[in-house]
């Protein structure tokens, strides 16, 4: 079924929440080492698709392969152990716990305290905020700062694949750039990144590969540049005049 070369592969994935399928048969490969971006309109199933990767949603049909291992049926915990971590769309820090406790929980599956301490040190080098606000409650941080701490937390497992669901949601332009730069950095230090983005132009520009999801099905796939320059897609999803600085558009795209 699977070639040894594929890193993460979606194979005829059909998934939903019990009332009709949200993902209606998706096939594509996420190559190792790159940044792969999923774009598409609100409600097209992007988050649901990511949840099938992390084990939060179990596909009704089809299979996901991670380096030859089938993922369907595995628990989020087992998938983490394989080296896939996800940062969900909604903020996921434990607000009442300190920043450091949150980041340490990222290594919940690691039992060795020494290893945890080492990784914490390493992660702090990339994310100074983890040290600066170590003792503060995570809930007291701004939205952008929380995102960075979530990134820091997800690196504690030294994952091979990092799955990010709209990491720039609700951020001001300056923080947004910082978050994007951080994603590039994570990729540069060896993490494969799979992300969903509403700030599509900016995201596609830094992506090696991209797919467009529409109504639970793939509409288009190719390199980041190809998708960015596709005239049809440009008009439909990238909105000729969407400004990346638009902080008004961000809250509007917030779900729920």
């Amino acid at each position, binding site marked *: 079924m699977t070639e040894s070369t594929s890193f993460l592969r979606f194979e005829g994935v059909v998934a939903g929440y019990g009332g009709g399928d949200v993902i209606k048969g998706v096939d594509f490969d996420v190559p190792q080492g790159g940044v792969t971006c999923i774009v598409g309109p609100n409600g097209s199933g992007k988050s649901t698709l990511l949840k099938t990767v992390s084990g939060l949603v179990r596909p009704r049909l089809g299979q996901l392969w991670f380096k030859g291992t089938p993922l369907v049926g595995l628990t989020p*915990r087992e998938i983490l152990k394989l080296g896939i971590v996800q940062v969900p769309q909604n903020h996921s820090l*434990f607000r009442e*716990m300190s920043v450091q*406790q949150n980041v340490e929980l990222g290594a919940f*599956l690691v039992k060795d305290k020494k290893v945890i301490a080492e990784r914490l040190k390493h992660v702090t080098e990339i994310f100074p905020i983890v040290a600066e606000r170590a003792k503060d409650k995570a809930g007291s941080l701004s939205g952008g700062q929380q995102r960075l701490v979530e990134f820091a*937390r997800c690196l504690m497992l030294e994952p091979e694949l990092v799955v990010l669901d709209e990491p720039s949601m609700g951020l001001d332009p300056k923080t947004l750039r910082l978050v994007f730069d951080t994603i590039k950095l994570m990729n540069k230090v060896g993490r494969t990144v799979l992300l969903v983005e509403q700030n599509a132009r900016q995201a596609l520009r830094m992506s090696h590969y991209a797919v467009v999801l529409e109504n639970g099905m793939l509409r288009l796939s190719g390199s980041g540049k190809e998708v960015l320059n596709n005239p049809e897609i440009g008009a439909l999803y990238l909105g000729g005049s969407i400004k990346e600085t638009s902080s008004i558009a961000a809250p509007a795209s917030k779900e729920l």
Partner: protein
Amino acid sequence: MLDGVLTGSVYALMATGLTLIFGVMNIINIAQGILVILGAYLSYTLSVHFGIDLFVGLIITIPTLFVVGVVVERLFMARLKGPERTSMSILVTYAISLIIEGSLNMIYSINVVQLKAWYVDKSFPIFGVYLPYIYLFGFILAVVLLTSLYIMLYRTRFGASIRASLADQVAAALVGINVARVSTICFGLGIAVTAAGGMVYGATNAFNASTSYDLISRLLTIIVLGGMGSLGGALLAAILMVTLGDVVAVVWSPIWSSPTFFFVLVIVLSLRPQGLFGKQSARVA
């Protein structure tokens, strides 16, 4: 008044179990009241038929009720899924409550009993009044158990996984916490405390199976006032409920002690619908 503070700690213990179960699992355990009575009857049997001291008997009754909790969770609670989970849980735990109540009525009859021991009969002087020793011992027991619970919650890895699940189940699952297992153990713990609570309750009150209705309404009131799912809130609300009742009884009239508490409850809830320490977000799963 003083016995209020002492009893309050025991209510706090029983309510902590209830709020822990709600906080982690979004389950309202209506059976908590009858489980307290079950705990009291277990202590009764051990002491009357086997001559085992009430406090020593806890070594048997606490693990027994923990196992009861784990079994009930695996058999019934783990099957409740989806957005209707909380309301379904009220029905299911009410059914469980009725089954236990019926069984207890059959086994022990409806005659009220009270647990006996020297510390139930003997009193000690304190601030000019005499109180049976059981109030003091019960208080110490509740403090010891609550402290252990808090140390477990705030100082251990497992405790961190419980607090993470309390805060956000999806986020907890995404860092590798086995939320289903945490839920089972929390349900077990939440029920295990009724063994201790039931023993002290049964030693300070005459009871039969129907006493559970008064108990569950008090316990639910405590966790609603404290904020559903808030551990600190349950502690404070329990002490508030009992002491407020006692203060009103002394300075005004015992008739007004319950109504005053419910009056305070209504005022608090109209100002803060989420209770004293509740987080609104804790309600939406």
